[in-house]
């Protein structure tokens, strides 16, 4: 029997704000697996999974043998295509870091500084050393244009085609905004759909919502 420390849910919430829910979940799952093995990962899911359903999904894929997320940005780079401006809606640092490694420096990148978790945005942006600019929910449209793309992260897609995304996506991408950006891209960060009610997320029809679902 493993003995995970109390307060993991609070710790995970704190980290999820500045890393993203999937990125933070992988950090925690790896750390628990290192010290407590798969039994500890199962216990982590039991203790925290219902509150942080992305963690639940990550523990399931870990226990199924997946040891690292697929963060290959090639298809996202392809979806961005000739866009010269990319506005990122939501944050997943494991994926965003890989994307920034591959994107030409001529492509400007901004991050919408908004989260359901408390976040020190200055600290988040400092990690990108000027490569990523800050925009807010009420100003990101200054980046709109015929060569601009919106990118968000999706948390699994079910068999019926519905994908879980951050509520922020719906707040950002209204009917007006859809026609202000040439590409509306979702980068799926979970290899399996969510099993639990998508707390903290909303479900959308992936095909109708996005021009590219990667």
């Amino acid at each position, binding site marked *: 029997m493993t003995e995970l420390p109390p307060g993991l849910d609070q710790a995970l919430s704190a980290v999820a704000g500045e890393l993203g829910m999937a990125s933070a979940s992988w950090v925690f799952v790896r750390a628990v697996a290192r010290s407590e093995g798969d039994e500890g990962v199962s216990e982590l899911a039991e203790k925290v999974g219902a509150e942080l359903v992305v963690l639940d999904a990550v523990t399931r894929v870990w226990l199924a043998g997946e040891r690292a997320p697929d963060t290959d940005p090639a298809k996202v780079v392809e979806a961005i295509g000739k866009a010269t401006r990319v506005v990122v809606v939501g944050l997943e640092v494991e994926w965003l870091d890989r994307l920034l490694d591959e994107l030409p420096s001529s492509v400007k990148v901004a991050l919408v500084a908004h989260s359901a978790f408390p976040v020190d945005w200055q600290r988040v942006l400092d990690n990108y050393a000027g490569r990523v600019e800050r925009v807010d929910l009420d100003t990101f*449209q*200054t980046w709109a244009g*015929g060569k601009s793309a919106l990118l968000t992260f999706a948390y699994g897609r079910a068999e019926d085609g519905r994908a879980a995304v951050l509520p922020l996506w719906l707040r950002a991408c209204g*009917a007006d905004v*859809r*026609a*202000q950006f040439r590409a509306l891209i979702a980068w799926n960060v979970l290899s399996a759909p969510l099993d639990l009610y998508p707390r903290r997320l909303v479900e959308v029809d992936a095909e109708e919502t996005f021009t590219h679902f990667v």
Partner: protein
Amino acid sequence: MSHSRASSSAAFVDAARIDALLASIVPDGEDRAFVVRCILGEGPVHHRGANYVLLVLLGQLVEKLGASNVAALRARGTLPVPIKVPPHLERPQSLMSYPLPLPTGPLESLAPAGSPDQAAMVDCLNDGPPQHALANAAMMWLIGAALTHLEKP
């Protein structure tokens, strides 16, 4: 008033057909995909369907006339179709515009170039949501191609 009963489906819309129709006007595939989505994939269903019907029929007219030379029309002048954002969010020194411009040549039969009337016509054609403004521009290209062909000596 709901339009759902009269126009609940635009299943007849074949985006590939409009994409092909605009290929010579907007040569870049990604640019064209953006324009086609705005015309056929955004906004109310009845607008999407109406845009499709009018563009396909105008395309048929142009095809039957053999009026495919858009270069001549482009040479007569175009104006950008702006991407509208709230005024305080417009980027200074950077016009936000769609990759499909509005050809002004056809308007010269209605009002001289540079006249207030022609400027007002351009405003009317560019006004409204993008599915209107871009469909207007696309139709102007097709009407312009037909008229240019018919005006040939």
